[in-house]
């Protein structure tokens, strides 16, 4: 049958045509590759990070580039899944032959793609991976080329627990999305609470993408905690808050890890977002060098205000390029040496890593929505206002 042969030929042609190497690396711009969660569960946050990268490249190019070359980003969409991310980093490194890579969004995806970047000995500054276990690994599984920018997951809710303990609150309930980062943040909060003499009366996870929290929240209402700590991303944080109102679950304090600090959080929830604490790595109002200028340039460029994911992405890119500049080369081992010793302060705050590339200098802050404004309420030396405490009934907000 002629047709059968044809089918087989088409198949062979498809496989080969698809995988023929693209043109070899041309001299010209320094190309930096990344896969980001532009669609899928993490899309909202991944897009903020993408804008941070874009602004960083633009500013460097406006100042004449790096090592005499322009900086250009090659970005793909990993659909918020680790498997796609792995394939895309492999593509960036072996086919697009980018000069450097920077990190993707989220801990699970970073955990997966770090295996690829390590294999090719590529330095990867990972601005949005906050899970300790990605960096702190047993001696035989050490990674050498990844660098953390933000504070680790375990301290996200430190501010909430600290404020609660100071106000003499005794019980805390903790919920978390059952994924790498959120779980680490939740267990970090539980440890801190126990250390401060508080009692963890409820702790449970829910699967990624969960929409209905009524069963979980009913159980929490029965446990009647003083404090509710939720280790979330964005969509789940909004859903939990809405359903708390529906079920009239009203702890004295309610804090969120990721999502509570986004402007969209207030846009969606309006006055229901009032009094809610959000953990954040960064705020536009913090007195870091160049921070105000960054926030202004960002708002001008993208027509919306930056969030910490934007700033972290921006800072990750700035730090990497700074290290390249100091090293005077793109050579991975020399850039690595520089990064390990680098102590610097960007618009995002302090940067300094230990021998595992683990961030030790950066500080977290805690915000609260007060009258439609996001205000820093913790730590005391950076606070702009006193926390409004306790939360009033839902219908009085």
């Amino acid at each position, binding site marked *: 049958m002629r047709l059968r042969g044809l089918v087989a030929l088409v*198949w062979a042609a498809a496989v080969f045509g698809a995988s023929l190497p693209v043109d070899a690396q041309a001299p010209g711009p320094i190309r930096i590759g990344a896969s980001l969660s532009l669609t899928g569960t993490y899309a909202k946050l991944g897009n903020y990070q993408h804008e941070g990268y874009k602004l960083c490249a633009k500013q460097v190019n406006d100042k004449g580039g790096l090592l005499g070359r322009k900086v250009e980003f090659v970005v793909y969409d990993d659909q918020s899944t680790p498997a796609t991310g792995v394939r895309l980093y492999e593509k960036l490194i072996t086919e697009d032959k980018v000069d450097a890579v920077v990190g993707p969004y989220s801990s699970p995806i970073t955990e997966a793609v770090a295996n690829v970047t390590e294999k090719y000995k590529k330095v990867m500054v990972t601005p949005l991976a906050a899970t300790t276990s990605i960096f702190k690994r047993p001696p035989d599984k050490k990674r050498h080329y990844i660098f953390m920018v933000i504070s680790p997951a375990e301290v996200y809710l430190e501010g909430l627990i600290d404020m609660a303990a100071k106000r003499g609150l005794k019980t805390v309930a903790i919920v978390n999305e059952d994924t790498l980062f959120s*779980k680490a943040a939740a267990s970090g909060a539980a440890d801190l609470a126990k250390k401060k003499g508080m009692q963890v009366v409820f702790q449970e996870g829910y699967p990624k993408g969960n929409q209905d929290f009524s069963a979980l929240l009913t159980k929490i209402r029965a446990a009647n905690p003083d404090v509710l700590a939720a280790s979330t991303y964005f969509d789940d944080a909004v859903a939990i808050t809405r359903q708390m109102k529906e079920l009239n679950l009203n702890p004295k304090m309610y804090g969120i890890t990721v999502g509570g600090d986004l402007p969209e959080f207030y846009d969606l929830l309006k006055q229901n977002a009032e009094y809610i604490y959000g953990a954040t790595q960064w705020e536009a109002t913090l007195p870091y060098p160049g921070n105000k200028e960054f926030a202004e340039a960002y708002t001008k460029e993208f027509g919306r205000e930056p969030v910490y994911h934007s700033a972290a992405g921006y800072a990750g890119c700035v730090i990497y390029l700074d290290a390249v500049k100091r090293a005077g080369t793109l050579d991975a081992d020399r850039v690595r040496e520089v990064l390990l010793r680098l102590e610097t302060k960007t618009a995002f705050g302090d940067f300094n890593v230990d021998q595992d590339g683990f961030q030790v200098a950066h500080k977290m802050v805690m915000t609260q929505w007060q009258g439609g404004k996001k205000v820093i309420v913790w730590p005391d030396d950076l606070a702009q206002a006193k926390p409004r405490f306790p939360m009033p009934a839902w219908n009085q907000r």
Partner: protein
Amino acid sequence: MTRAFLGALGVALAALALYPFFGTGYGVRATLQIFMWIALAGSWNLISGLTGYVSFGHVAFFGAGAYAGAILVAKVGWSWPAASLVGGVAACVLALVIGYPCLRLKGPYFAIAMLGLNEVLRALVSYFEGLTGGGSGLSLPTLDATIPIYYVMGVLAAAVTLLTYLIITSRFGLRLMTIREDEVAAEALGIDTARHKLYAFLLSAAGPGIAGALTARDQGYIEPISVFPLAMTITMIVMVLFGGKGTVWGPVLGAVVLFVSQEFVWARFPYLHQLLFGAIIVAVVLLMPRGVLGILQMKYRLPRTI
């Protein structure tokens, strides 16, 4: 003509076997993914294409194999080839447990049970944290074995395709297709339908189990949501429907065409690709329910063993 076909097939296989020697890391990994999808779609075709019993949770076997393999590698220290075989066995055992009762029922119960099975498994691996790492996932020791895994996955894809050919040309296959066309008539002819369906189901579980374990080893990190996604089952189904269900080469054609278009065309339109995927599902179901090969078979009177 058969000779021309075998010749072309031989050339394609030889080229694929040599590919890792000159392909890029990404090319090898993408082709490895195509092999995986051929194995998955081909396996789904064995139960659902041949007997008509639609499995809506076939990714459960993929995930079960992935976790079985990953646990053996990470916690017990097995080598990955042995762990992959056990991944296949684990999937078969699971298929036996769920298939024995469910395949006795007629109608949509089997489809729903499979959908549930996938969710149950995901919840179970999230729950048994000590063994599976729960939602934090399971990291495997770093090992660069992409090229050996490429070959093993390639052999697996070929084996599933060959198995489909052998079944379709056998009395066993005829019995399965009789069940698909009219189960009551099949019983009246003296076919032990429950047993035949179960055999087909066991055969269809092994491939995804092995593929899951291989993928886990290759990626080095798995988490419940990444190995039990419903979307993966849907993709398998669409690949088979597109290529032609109940055929030998339909799943292969569907896997290659859909994966390649996803990777090289749709990836450039991140916000559109899900829409496009949905549109393809609708178009296939409405316009060519028998798939590309099904249409060709009807039009050109091709043998059913294509």
